[in-house]
């Protein structure tokens, strides 16, 4: 699947100041029965978003009309647990292009990158400021610049890490399979050793 190109995104954001958000919360297992990649956004954070009878849980941030945008900001250790890529598909399908946290689980981070969703790791201090700022003003924005590897809040800028290979993939919309297919000859050589 070719991924969306990512360069700069300026957007308001949705705060989810909960730690250890696991992939079972992002997309519960009972919604993993599909055989395509589409439509998982409907059930993103299903059991936090909706009550058992299907009605909206008004207290949950995604149901609060005050908050919107293409950036999700979450507490530390986002995406722990299962390797289900459906979690990244759900985040992407809902419309988020960036997830900001002070710490990500490894598999979720890989899955997000493979779907053109940029995980931005910030310091715990910066994360606190981001949460505080949106409490003041729900239309507060963040600017994420991939080329520069920076995230800014009201002009306060922090740099983030991403490996140069993945950065290049996102900037250009390349995916890993294309890269690997180009290496077929080397792989066949390796097998002979």
């Amino acid at each position: 699947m070719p991924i969306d190109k990512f360069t700069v995104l300026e957007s308001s954001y949705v705060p989810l100041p909960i730690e250890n958000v696991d992939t079972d919360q992002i997309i519960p297992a009972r919604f993993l029965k599909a055989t395509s990649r589409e439509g998982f956004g409907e059930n993103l954070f299903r059991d936090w978003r909706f009550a058992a009878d299907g009605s909206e849980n008004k207290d949950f941030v995604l149901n609060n009309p005050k908050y919107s945008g293409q950036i999700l900001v979450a507490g530390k250790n986002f995406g722990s647990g299962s390797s289900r890529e459906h979690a990244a598909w759900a985040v992407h399908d809902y419309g988020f292009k960036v997830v900001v946290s002070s710490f990500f689980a490894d598999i979720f981070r890989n899955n997000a990158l493979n779907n053109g969703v940029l995980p931005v790791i910030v310091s715990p201090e910066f994360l606190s400021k981001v949460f505080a700022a949106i409490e003041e003003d729900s239309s507060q924005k963040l600017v994420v610049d991939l080329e520069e590897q920076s995230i800014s809040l009201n002009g306060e800028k922090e740099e983030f890490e991403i490996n140069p290979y993945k950065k290049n993939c996102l900037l250009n919309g390349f995916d890993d399979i294309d890269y690997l297919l180009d290496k077929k000859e080397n792989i066949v050589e390796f097998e002979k050793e």
Partner: protein
Amino acid sequence: MEPKTLFDKVWDAHVVEKIEGGPSVLYIDKHLIHEVTSPQAFAGLESRGLKVFRPEKTVATPDHNIPTVNQHLKIEDELSRNQIETLTANCKKNDITLYGLNHPKNGIVHVVGPELGHTQPGMTMVCGDSHTSTHGAFGAVAFGIGTSEVEMVLATQCILQPKPKRMRITIDGELQKGVTAKDLTLYVIAQLGTGGATGYFVEYAGSAVRNLTMEGRMTVCNMSIEMGARGGMIAPDETTFEYVKGREFAPKGEDWDKAVAKWKELKTDDGAVFDKEYTYKAEDIEPMLTYGTNPGMGTGISGNIPTAEEVEASELPTFKKSLEYMGFGLGDKLLGKKVDYVFVGSCTNGRIEDLRMLASLVKGKKKADSVTAWIVPGSKQVEKQAQEEGLVEVLEEAGFELRQPGCSACLAMNDDKIPAGKYSVSTSNRNFEGRQGPGSRTLLASPLTAAAAAVTGVITDPRELF
């Protein structure tokens, strides 16, 4: 030669090439697939007009989404049936070995791999399932991947992967009676926390680990992901060779001798450096139980849930939210709390030794009437062995029945769901909110602790029942 860790030896031997400042192209020896995380990968392959590159290196078994009763009948849920039929069709089209539903070798992917000898020391193994770390028990580099990565492996038998850092966890000493591999791993996770090993590949070492059986080692490596580790592994030794020998896909004859000679080199050299090391004493570990909504929230069974003062201030809001979900209070004692359901099974504790442990404790006793118990063998072979060994009889006499193999209530994708608000003592691996069904409340434990809860109806120290 510079001393190397076990992990480095296996990883480095599989690097086709390293991208400067980026991931490595890692060659995969064995790829395991199941019905839930593979359909989109096959679809992706098809849309690129590709066939599976090395079909003989992939093995398939449906497990996550299959019923655990009446497996001989048509699956009622249309979406589930479609997922399983899609796996069958994809395997057929691409010449992939499939242990389908009702096949005598069907079962949970991480139970089937080792029991058939697909899992061997020194291999690289992946599967679209985070508990692939199980296979590290054999000295393999094994880890869970996403579906895009499943597609990569199907297309090229390789994956692009950044190399994790190295961690060693040493547990020396002897485990007390009634303390199992599951307790050992829950103890370690409680020490490190749910993200404590994120970014690392863990090697488990020390005499307590060495003395574990292969199945115990699998339980320990299986849970590595629950502290965030990319994987966990244990250096192969005579216990490993003894287990692998004679299994269907294990090397035979002269090949066996050659393989063992090679496998004996798979250990961390003296002086090799780890990025992080932890050491624990086996004697400090008692039967463990979790009380919260991540596997790091665990304590010895005689202990209490931490008080507000014992929790780091910054983590208190999340901690309280978790206890609220569980219906527990700060400082609560665990012993004596009511239990509604007991689940024994999963890739963590669904093997024959787990069923033996369960049977040993419930023998001559009766299941508490207030408890619903689901005993789910990890595979058809485990099921058969439990029958042959008379375990099924022991369990039935005590009021338990065996369901059919599958992942079942570990993730509750099928109908095996714990109802909202009910307490489940479970031998599985995750106690996340709603993991065993919307609103379910899970307490992770060993098969012995689960057995003790099943016969008493409350949280009970299994050592009191021996």
